[in-house]
């Protein structure tokens, strides 16, 4: 999952980048509204965290411009003032949730998970596809109610595919959402991950949850239950 964090306080931004990175998110940081707008309109993100008090372009104007550009990713606002005028203005402008400063990283993670899940159309915190169940809060996969161990990248890939069921996800899109920008993008690594995932999810090859669409990418094929 690729996230954009727009926060002018560099220490706080670094903390968010590191904390979210530890949780498996790929994070781009922007220090003001102007660079935030550049990132948000130039790259694809799964969600954005935007502080309301930003230099250059303030948070509310930034959210409006992102929405005006047609970007639909969930946006979480950070507000220091915490009054309802700000919260409502931010939500009116197009944000989806708010967190009042100071906050705990756990709170941000919980809100982000809920937003990502909601954006993918899931009401419950667990994504269930037949015998497969992915708890994105606990980052835990079960097959037939048996826990399955996944590496961080395997989990990230499966989560992304399960949040976009039925859609063909290209290898480049997967790479962008799984790796930081400066990562050496080798599509062979993705193929290795997919092969390992297939073995862990469907050792008998009866479900075939991840389909390879020739020349286009991968598709998660199971139906939501």
């Amino acid at each position, binding site marked *: 999952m690729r996230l954009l964090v727009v926060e002018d306080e560099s220490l706080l931004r670094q903390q968010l980048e590191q904390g979210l990175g530890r949780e498996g998110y790929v994070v781009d940081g922007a220090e003001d509204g102007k660079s935030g707008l550049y990132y948000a309109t130039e790259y694809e993100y799964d969600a954005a965290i935007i502080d309301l*008090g930003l230099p250059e372009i303030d948070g509310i104007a930034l959210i409006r411009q992102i929405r005006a550009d047609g970007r639909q990713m969930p946006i979480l606002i950070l507000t*220091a003032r915490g009054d*309802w005028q700000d*919260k*409502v203005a931010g939500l009116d402008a197009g944000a989806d949730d708010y967190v*009042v*400063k*100071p*906050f705990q990283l756990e709170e941000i993670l919980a809100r982000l998970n809920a937003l990502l899940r909601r954006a993918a159309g899931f009401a419950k915190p667990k994504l269930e596809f037949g015998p497969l169940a992915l708890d994105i809060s606990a980052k835990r996969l079960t097959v037939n109610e048996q826990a399955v161990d996944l590496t961080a990248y395997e989990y990230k890939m499966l989560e992304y595919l399960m949040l976009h069921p039925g859609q063909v996800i290209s290898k480049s899109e997967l790479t962008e959402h799984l790796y930081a920008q400066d990562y050496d993008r080798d599509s062979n690594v993705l193929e290795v991950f997919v092969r390992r995932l297939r073995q862990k999810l469907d050792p008998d090859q009866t479900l075939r949850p991840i389909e390879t669409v020739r020349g286009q990418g991968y598709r998660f094929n199971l139906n939501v239950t």
Partner: protein
Amino acid sequence: MRVDKCGRDIEPMSKIAGNSTYSLQSRLLLAFSALLFFFLGLTGIILDRAFRNSVEAGAVERLQVQIYLLLSTVEEDDGEFYFLEDLQEPRFSQLNSGLYGFISSPAYGVLWRSDSARTFVMPDPEFFANRLAVGDTRFRRLDSVGAEVYFALSYGILWEDGIREYSFSVVENAAPYYSEIANFRTSLWSWLGGVAVLLLLIQLALLRWGLLPLHRLAVDLKKIEAGQRDKLEGSYPKELEGVTDNLNLLIESERKQQSRYRTTLADLAHSLKTPLAVIGGLLPRSAPDSGAGSTLPDKVQLQAVNEQLDRMNQIVSYQLQRAMRSEKASTLSRQVNASRTLRRILDALQKVYADKSIALDYQVDPKALFFGDERDLMEVLGNVLDNAFKYGRSAIWVSLQKTGSDGRGLRITVEDDGAGIEEDKQNFVLQRGARADTLVQGQGIGLAVVTDIVGSYAGEIRVEDSQLGGARILIEFNSNLTTGSNE
């Protein structure tokens, strides 16, 4: 009565505008009426005097003519006077006719009297005794015992022989003249009275027209006070333009000051809370149970630091929210459509709590108004509804009604089906100005801030048990108060 930040009393603007014993209109009307009555009275007296003088002058002329008539026909023989022909004026011959003729000399008194004066008693017997120079006339107004008034005119002559001097006198009853004067007087004062009433009405109309811009100014100021307008609009006469321009500047400057105050507080909030967030991020929430560097004192210290951090955060949040709203001692409130604000808050909260699938039921009067700052209403509705969404399980009921005979009051009811607030804590959470570090855990600072805001508008807030099973928050803003007071 409200007080400003220095403790001085603040009078409502409308009271200041009308705070004098007499209104401008009464003052002008009173002064102009006094002037009008003085000049009309003086005019009446002068005209009355002039007419009276003119009537008396006319009487003198007529009496003079009568004397010439007597002179032209009288003959004297050995001290006896007789007339060559009948007197042309028949009233001389008719007894007590009201016109009497006399011929007298200072030495012998009355030598002849007309037939009409046979029984007439001269009111002033001395009248004939005084010598009158030849060719002179003497006019007298004689008051008799019987309240009759007479005009008397004497004319001194030298007889043909050049030796004897006589006085020819004519006395006439003055009643017809005074009757004429009385008629004139009645007519004169009636007309003057009519003119006075007409002038007063015209003056009243002119005053109202002249003072109309001031009335408009007072009405506009009242509208600003009631929150129906932002500033004085429209054109005023140039004499008032200076005042209205300055008032607009004053209003604008007060609003700018409020805005500056909020911006400063927002900056302060940002600059305090962001470092708090950084510190919070640097500290782990709890020390690992095992590990080389983890000792019991470390855990205790970490817990203490975290607790102090939470406390600082709560105090900063609570005091900043209080400070941000306590600046609104403004007399210039605004009129806020409460249902529109409620709609915005509900839209925002439904977005945030989309996962909870709360069944929201509400009864909202679309014309319900809040007289005050919209930020205050947003804080009240936002905090109360946020609690309802947070603690409610599946259902929320919201009601917004206008109250009071003038419809300027507002009643807000919010109910949820959550766990509710225990009875012994219901009063505690509503204590005004409860210190942040003594607030009930889980209630956050929301209800304490709401209680502060409601209290500053002299409103009421109650926490009860809802029929839905959770808490029922009832807030009433009174109709007779339009603006919040300073803390």
